[in-house]
């Protein structure tokens, strides 16, 4: 954690989850778990966000919404799939309206399994996402510097 200098902001979107993971994501931001101590702030605006937390699988109606939110986010960005449904489709995989996990529409960096994913594992995922975000950020900066010189 020592080399992290940025405070990444987090955006949460409920794909087609059962709410179980959503309320655990929200629980992470409240006093008992408190991800704000890692500098992570929960935002509602995709344009402000660096980390995209998505719960639940992809269905035909929310597919475009997820893609749109992903495109609206400025780079570099990290996508975290929270819960078994977001990873693979989970228990709803065989439902007629579920296309599968989040990685069927957008690239996913970190998978957090669990039904419902526990706050501890979500925080673990977010901490990994913060580190990955820093890495992507540094890479981008190096590239920009190289392009300048």
């Amino acid at each position, binding site marked *: 954690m020592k080399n992290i200098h940025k405070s990444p902001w987090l955006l949460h979107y409920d794909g*087609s989850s059962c*709410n*179980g993971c959503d*309320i655990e994501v*929200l629980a992470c931001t409240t006093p*008992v778990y408190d991800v704000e101590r890692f500098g992570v702030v929960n935002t*509602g605006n995709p344009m402000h966000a660096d980390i995209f937390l998505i719960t639940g699988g992809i269905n035909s109606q*929310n597919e475009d*919404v997820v893609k749109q939110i992903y495109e609206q986010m400025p780079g570099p960005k990290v996508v975290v799939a929270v819960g078994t449904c977001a990873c693979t489709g989970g228990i709803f995989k065989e439902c007629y309206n579920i296309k599968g996990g989040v990685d069927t529409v957008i690239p996913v960096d970190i998978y957090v399994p669990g039904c*419902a994913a526990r706050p501890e594992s979500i925080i673990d995922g977010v901490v990994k996402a913060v580190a990955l975000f820093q890495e992507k950020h540094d890479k981008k900066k190096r590239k920009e510097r190289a392009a300048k010189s």
Partner: protein
Amino acid sequence: MPKRSIVPFGPQHPVLPEPIHLDLVLEDELVIEAIPSIGYVHRGLESLVAKKDFNEMVYVTERICGICSFMHGMGYCSAVEQIMNVQIPRRAEFLRTIWAEMSRIHSHLLWLGLLADAFGFEALFMQSWRLREKILDMFEIATGGRVIFSVNKIGGVLKDMPAEMLSNFVAVLDGMEKELRETTQTFLDDYTVKSRLVGVGILTEEDAIRRGAVGPMMRASGIEVDMRKTGYAAYDEIDFQVITSKECDSFARCKVRIAELFQSIEIIRQAVSKIPDTEISVPVKGFPNGEAYVRLEQPRGEAFYYVRANGSKFVDRMRVRTPTFANIPALMQVLQGCQFGDVPLLILTIDPCISCTER
């Protein structure tokens, strides 16, 4: 001449934890009409009955919604038990009652927090959610899970709570009650909270009936409806009064839910004192054949379960009518004529659970 415009609201919106889309027809700042469109969380889990057998379906129904997960499982199990003529042990019924009431406390606290967040009172949001963690800790001690804990099975429950654990829980709830009084007093007395809630979003008694509202929404309009009074599970042995309010506004809905928090603690106390010492489940043999329906009171209102079975291991049809679905017409009524700035708050006052509604 006021200017007419249509503003899209959602599906991704800062105040909504779940996606719902509304088209708001505005005349300047006033909402003239709200047109809902849902389907962002639709999975089609009722169709899973063709792929998962009737025992596996318990786990699927528990995932209709993560907030009232326990009661969804309970509804499905009691419907199948009715079809198969299984009388579950009395202790299992009491345990179900206790877990159901604990779910109600956690759900109402969650709602109070989200409501506080909707009108920008973040400290109150944090307080409510801090208190809610105590209930989740109790779930974890008793069952191992926090939000989805899968203790229902057809024929009873899977886990028992020994007497010592139950008395510990009652002690925790006693302590929690004091903290709850302090926190909820802020909701009831604070000037800023009142200025956002009092007189906002009136749903009259006639409108509530005409629009078929359920649960706290109906009770806050002065109508005494509570499925728990039908005496399913162990509620027939428990003495409680249905909480209503005559004021019909958002503040009344808040008041009703706060009173229900304390009522739930009281119901748990009564249930713990009356719990008999019997088995917790009975073995179930064979496959269900026939049909049954069950109505029960979830934190958000009445839920209805219909199951039809054909004697094979796959159930023919399972249908759930959830409270939020019944409350959406009432919400549309409430939104008509409100200020645009009040829309997120009013959506929250019905305690929306979109994943229940769309399944």
